[in-house]
C-alpha cells in the first residue's frame, strides 16, 4: 500500500461527498451512509467505521465536509470519550455493540468517575463492584456527572478489590443507565443552574462482558478517558457550535447539540465574559476612570497573552514539534482571566452589581458572571491540581512522598460518606 497523500485523500473525500451528501436526508440515514463509507472517522481502522488514515488527514476531510456543509458523526460530549476509550481498550464485543450507535448519535453517554469522597483523588473511588452469579453488581455513589439524566450508558470506574493499593483495585465498566438500580438526581449549584448529577447505585447490574480491560486494570483505562477529556476540553466546545444553515438535517443536528450543550449554557459566564468588558465600561462610564482602565488593561493583557499562548501551543503541534510548556498552562491561565474579569465587571458595574435577574445589568448576565466564576478554578481539576501537574509533568519536579498508594486501599484513611 502506498503512503496516502493529502491531494489524493482530499479528492477522494470530495468525490464521495459530492456523490452522497444530501441535506434533505434525515440525520440518522445520512450518518448511516457516512459511517459505512468510513469518511465519518477517517483515522479509525477500516474494520471499525474508519478509513485507516493517519490522524493528520482528519483535518483535510473535515475541511471538505465543511465546504459542502455536510453534517458529521455524533461525537460531542462524553460520546467522543467513550468512543476513544472503547476503541483503545474495548474488545470486539464492546466495539460492535457501542461504537456505531455512538457515531449515529442514537445513544447518549455519561462519565461516572468522581465521587463525593474523592474529588481531586479519582483513584480513591469507593463505589464497589462485585461479581455475583456471573453479573457485576454495583453499590455506591458518583457525583459531578454531566447529563446523566439523558444518558443511555455510563463509563463507570468502580472498586473490585480493597486489599491491594488503590490504583490496582479499580475496574472499568460500561453501565446501562436505564435500570432500576441507578438513580439520578440533579445537583443545584450556587449560581442556580443544575449542570451536574449525583448518581446512586443500589445493586445496579451489568453483564460480565461489560467489563472494559482487565479486572484491576481500570485505572489505565480511565487514564485514557481523562487524557482524551483534557485534550478535547476546547475541541468539544468547538464541535458544539451548531451550523446556522437551514434544512431538516441541520435542525436535527442543532437539537442534538442543544441537549449536549444544555449543562454548559452558563460556561461563558464562568469564563468571565471578557468580551463584554469594553462595551459595559462604555455603557456605565467607568471607561473614563483611570483606575478602572488599569484593571481593564490588566485583564485584556491576561486574556490576550493566554490566547497567544494557546496559539503558540497549536502552532507547535501543527508543526509536529514536541509540545513545550506553553501547552499545559491554558487551564490555569483561564482561571486567572476569569477571576480578573469578575473583579473588573464589579468595578465597572458598581452598585448595580448587587442586583440580579431582570433587575440586574444585562438581564442578570453580570450577576451570573459574578456567581459563576468561582467554578472555573475548581471544575475539571482545581488550580492546585493544575499546579501540581505542571510542576511534576512539565517541570519534572520530584513528587511529594506519598503514603496512600503503596498499601492496601482498605488501610488508607478515607472520608466518611456524607
Amino acid at each position, binding site marked *: 500500500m502506498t503512503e496516502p497523500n493529502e491531494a489524493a485523500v482530499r479528492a477522494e473525500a470530495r468525490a464521495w461527498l459530492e456523490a452522497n451528501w444530501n441535506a434533505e436526508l434525515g440525520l440518522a440515514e445520512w450518518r448511516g451512509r457516512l459511517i459505512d463509507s468510513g469518511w465519518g472517522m477517517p483515522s479509525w481502522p477500516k474494520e471499525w467505521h474508519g478509513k485507516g488514515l493517519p490522524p493528520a488527514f482528519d483535518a483535510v476531510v473535515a475541511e471538505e465536509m465543511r465546504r459542502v456543509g455536510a453534517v458529521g458523526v455524533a461525537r460531542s460530549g462524553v460520546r467522543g470519550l467513550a468512543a476513544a476509550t472503547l476503541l483503545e481498550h474495548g474488545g470486539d464485543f464492546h466495539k460492535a455493540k457501542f461504537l456505531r450507535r455512538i457515531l449515529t448519535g442514537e445513544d447518549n453517554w455519561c462519565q461516572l468517575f468522581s465521587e463525593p469522597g474523592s474529588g481531586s483523588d479519582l483513584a480513591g473511588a469507593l463505589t464497589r463492584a462485585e461479581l455475583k452469579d456471573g453479573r457485576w453488581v454495583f453499590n455506591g455513589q458518583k457525583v459531578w456527572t454531566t447529563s446523566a439524566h439523558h444518558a443511555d450508558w455510563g463509563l463507570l470506574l468502580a472498586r473490585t478489590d480493597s486489599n491491594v493499593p488503590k490504583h490496582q483495585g479499580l475496574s472499568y465498566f460500561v453501565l446501562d443507565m436505564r435500570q432500576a438500580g441507578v438513580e439520578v438526581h440533579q445537583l443545584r449549584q450556587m449560581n442556580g443552574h443544575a449542570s451536574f448529577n449525583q448518581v446512586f447505585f443500589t445493586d445496579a447490574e451489568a453483564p460480565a462482558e461489560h467489563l472494559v480491560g482487565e479486572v484491576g486494570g481500570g485505572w489505565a483505562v480511565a487514564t485514557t478517558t481523562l487524557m482524551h477529556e483534557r485534550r478535547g476540553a476546547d475541541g468539544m466546545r468547538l464541535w458544539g457550535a451548531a451550523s446556522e444553515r437551514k434544512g431538516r438535517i441541520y435542525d436535527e443536528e442543532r437539537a442534538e447539540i442543544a441537549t449536549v450543550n444544555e449543562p454548559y449554557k452558563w460556561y461563558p459566564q464562568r469564563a468571565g465574559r471578557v468580551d463584554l468588558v469594553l462595551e459595559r465600561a462604555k455603557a456605565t462610564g467607568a471607561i473614563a476612570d483611570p483606575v478602572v482602565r488599569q484593571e481593564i488593561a490588566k485583564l485584556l493583557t491576561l486574556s490576550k497573552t493566554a490566547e497567544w499562548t494557546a496559539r503558540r501551543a497549536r502552532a507547535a503541534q501543527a508543526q509536529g514539534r514536541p509540545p513545550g510548556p506553553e501547552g499545559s498552562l491554558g487551564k490555569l491561565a483561564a482561571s486567572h482571566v476569569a477571576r480578573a474579569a469578575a473583579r473588573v465587571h464589579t468595578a465597572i458595574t458598581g452598585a448595580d*452589581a448587587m*442586583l440580579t435577574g431582570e433587575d440586574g445589568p444585562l438581564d442578570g448576565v453580570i*450577576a451570573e458572571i459574578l*456567581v459563576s466564576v468561582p467554578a472555573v478554578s475548581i471544575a475539571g481539576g482545581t488550580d492546585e491540581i493544575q*499546579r501540581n501537574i505542571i510542576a511534576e509533568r512539565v517541570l519534572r519536579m520530584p513528587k511529594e512522598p*506519598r*503514603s*496512600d498508594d503503596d498499601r492496601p486501599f482498605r488501610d488508607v484513611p478515607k472520608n466518611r460518606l456524607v
Partner: protein
Amino acid sequence: MLRRFLQEKSPPAVVRRLMETDAGWERDAWIELNQQLGLTGVHIPEEYGGQGFGFVELGIVLEEMGRALLCAPYFSTTVLAATAIMNTGTRAQQEVLLPPIALGEVVATLAFTEPNGRWDASGIEMNATPGDAGKFRLDGIKSFVLDGHTADLIVVAARAPGSSGEDGLSLFTTPGGAAGLTRRALKALDPTRKLARLEFNGVEAELLGELGGAAGPLTKTLTQAAACLASEMVGGAERLRVSALDYANLRMQFGRPIASFQSMKHKQADMLVDVELAKSAAYAAASAAAEDDPELPAIASLAKACASEAYLQTAINTIQIHGGIGFTWDNDTHLWFKRAKSSEVFLGDPAWHRERMLQAWGV
C-alpha cells in the same frame, strides 16, 4: 453569649428559609431579638429608650450578625435609620422617632441612593418641594434601599429644587405606606439582604432636622455606617475562614487530611492574615466612631475597603478549599459569598473608599 444566641436563632436552615421570602425577615423573630437582648437600641441613648452604648458595642453586635448572616432589618433600622435620626433630628424628633425603634416596634430604613448608584451626598437628585402645613412633597426614585419595601418608617434624603452638590440637602421622614409611594423589591444577588426601589410621586414627608443642612449629618451617618459594615463583614469573613479550616481538617484526599498539604496550610495562613488585618481595621474604625475621632472618615473608609477585599477573598478561598462541593447550592458557603460580593459595593466599592481615605487624610 451573643454568638451562641445568634447561632441558635439564625442557623443556615433559617437563613435559607427567610432568604426565599419576599420580606427576608419575620416580625416575631425581630421582636423576640429585641426583647431578649435589646439589640436594636444598642447605641441609642438611654433617654430615648436605648441601651446607651456606643459604636464599639454596635460593632461587636454587627460582627456577630455578619457571622450568623442574620436575616433581620438591623442594618437598615439601627445602623442607617437610627443613626441618621440621632445625627440629624431635633431633640423633639428624636423623642418621637427613636423609642419605637429601640423597642423593636418600628422597622426603619434610610433611602438615599438613587438609580445612579452613587454613595455620596452630592449624588442625590430627588426633589423636595415645600407643601402644606410645613410638610414637604418628595418626587423621584430611590434604589438599593435596604429593606425599603418592608420598612415602617423611611428616612429620605432629598434636595431643594435647583440646588446641587452638598447644598440644599435635607432629610425627611415618611411612613412606609405613604400615599404616592410605590415600593418594589429588587432581585438581589445576595438574597439574605433585601433591597428595594422606591418611587416617590408627590409623597408627603416631614422634615428631619434643619432644612438644607443634611449634607453634614448624612455624610457622617454614611461614614459611621461604613465602619459598621466593616464590622459585619469581618464577622462573616471569620466564619468562612473557620469553616474552611474545619473542612480542610476533616476532608481526606490521597489518604491524608487536605489540611496537611503545604499549599493548604499556606492558603489558610494567608486567610488568617487577611481576616486579622481587616478585623484590626474594623476595630479601629469602631473605636474612632465611638470617640468621634476626627480621623474617623479616613479610618472608616480604610476599614470598609480592607474588609471588603478580605471578605471577598476569604469567600473565594473558602469555595476553592471546599472544591466542587463548595460551588453547590446545598453547601452554605455561597450564602456568605453572596453577602461578601454584595457588601463589596454596598456603601461604595474599595477603590472609592481608598480615594476617600486619602482625601480625608488631606492627601
